[in-house]
């Protein structure tokens, strides 16, 4: 075991072990190895033995923030009847740039009390898209993947392949300007500083360049594969609503049919609910079993929020969320004027 991720994993375990031993936290939230190569699972370590299962590597495509509200709820002792609710205990959590930004959003939205968290910051090296790896292999029977600093060593049925790591890093990570946690209490691993990205929204340009008919074709082709498993919603740290709109029955905003209009409604509203909050962490896209380019919708909204309101989510817990405020100066070029030419261009 050598290389950056192994050092970070060591440091992570040491930090989690000390925090648990000191009694400061009652669980440490991170990831453990998944059941298959190149997968991980969310994991809350509560004992010194469990700490040994914590890992940090390039396959942590989920978002640690997603589990925080639920974990805090689960760890809070139930209140006795007639007594006020108990306070949750403190927990530790590992956070890269986007994960910490999602924690910031949860703090802004009063889902998570900052003083109950010990955030262990880390710089993400960019997480790997396992689909990109699989696409480079002769077959998908992967036995093991060893992560070195700049190479993935993949062993599978009848092959041993070396893949340059950066080639298979997720698109959102490649265009990420904040790989480092923005709000943290402790730090593990090297510091890399912010990255400057020339064209953060380049991945949208191709679609934006199509006409309305072309864009509809793109949308309906890609999104009609959706089987509505809602894994994307479940993986998203913004989707903590007790009752999601897809489960509302009166009124029923999303029908249960296989008609594309229902699938489209789900995707449009899910993305829209993430406007001004989504950090482009990519968890939704990574967990999709149908390989749907979900992030394109949220990224489009990210761009619109940045351009119109000069806001990027999750950078400061003191900031007001862009959709819970307004400015009298907000652009309204899309408002129709009686007798005017109207809003042909947006």
């Amino acid at each position: 075991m050598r290389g950056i991720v192994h050092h970070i994993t060591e440091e992570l375990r040491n930090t989690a072990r000390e925090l648990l031993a000191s009694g400061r936290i009652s669980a440490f939230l991170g990831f453990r190895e998944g059941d298959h190569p190149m997968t991980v699972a969310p994991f809350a370590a509560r004992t010194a033995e469990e700490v040994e299962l914590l890992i940090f590597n390039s396959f942590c495509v989920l978002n640690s923030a997603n589990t925080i509200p639920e974990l805090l709820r689960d760890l809070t002792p139930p209140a006795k009847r007639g007594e006020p609710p108990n306070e949750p205990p403190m927990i530790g959590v590992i956070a890269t740039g986007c994960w910490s930004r999602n924690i910031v959003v949860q703090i802004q939205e009063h889902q998570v009390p900052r003083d109950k968290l010990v955030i262990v910051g880390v710089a993400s090296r960019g997480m790997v898209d396992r689909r990109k790896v699989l696409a480079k292999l002769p077959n998908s029977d992967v036995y093991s993947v060893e992560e070195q600093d700049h190479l993935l060593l993949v062993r599978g049925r009848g092959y041993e392949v070396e893949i340059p790591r950066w080639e298979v890093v997720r698109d959102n990570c490649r265009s990420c300007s904040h790989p480092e946690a923005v709000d943290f209490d402790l730090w593990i691993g090297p510091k890399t500083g912010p990255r400057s990205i020339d064209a953060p929204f380049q991945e949208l340009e191709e679609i934006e360049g199509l006409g309305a008919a072309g864009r509809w074709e793109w949308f309906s082709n890609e999104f009609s594969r959706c089987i509505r498993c809602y894994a994307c919603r479940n993986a998203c740290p913004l989707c903590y609503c007790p009752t999601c709109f897809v489960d509302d029955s009166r009124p029923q905003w999303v029908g249960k049919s296989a008609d594309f209009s229902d699938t489209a409604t789900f995707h449009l509203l899910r993305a829209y609910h993430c406007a001004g909050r989504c950090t482009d962490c990519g968890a939704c896209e990574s967990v999709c079993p149908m390989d749907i380019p979900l992030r394109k919708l949220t990224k489009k909204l990210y761009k619109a929020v940045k351009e119109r309101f000069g806001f990027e989510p999750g950078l400061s817990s003191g900031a007001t969320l862009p959709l819970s405020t307004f400015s009298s100066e907000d652009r309204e070029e899309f408002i129709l004027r009686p007798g005017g030419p109207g809003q042909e261009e947006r």
Partner: protein
Amino acid sequence: MDGMRQKWEPKIIAFLCTWCSYAGADLAGVSRLQYPPSLRIVKVPCTGRISANMILDALRSGADGVLVSGCHPGDCHYISGNLLARRRFALLGKLLDFIGIEPGRLNFTWISASEGEQFAEVVQQVTKRVRALGPATRLVKRL
């Protein structure tokens, strides 16, 4: 009768704020101003009450276009409902445009209670735009 059946007229769901645009529509009516009978009006307490769910629901249910009209900025009965709504509409418009819903199907405007004439004008304008686009097919639920 036959001639009428052949001539398609758009159905436009209009979400009108009760404090201003709904009264504006009323004024247009009592002033006997002519405008196309394309609107199906939904009265709402304020544009701030309108969610993206409602607009998408209209499109899914077969509306050829949507019109949202509220009080002018600064005149909202609830002070800032329309200013919050303006941000939301701007983003929804961007999103729907991005997936290929023609911008002309989604219309926003401000009409006060005294602007009956402007109301009639906007309805004509919107009807013209939607007519030019033809019947909606994208997002419409077919069962």
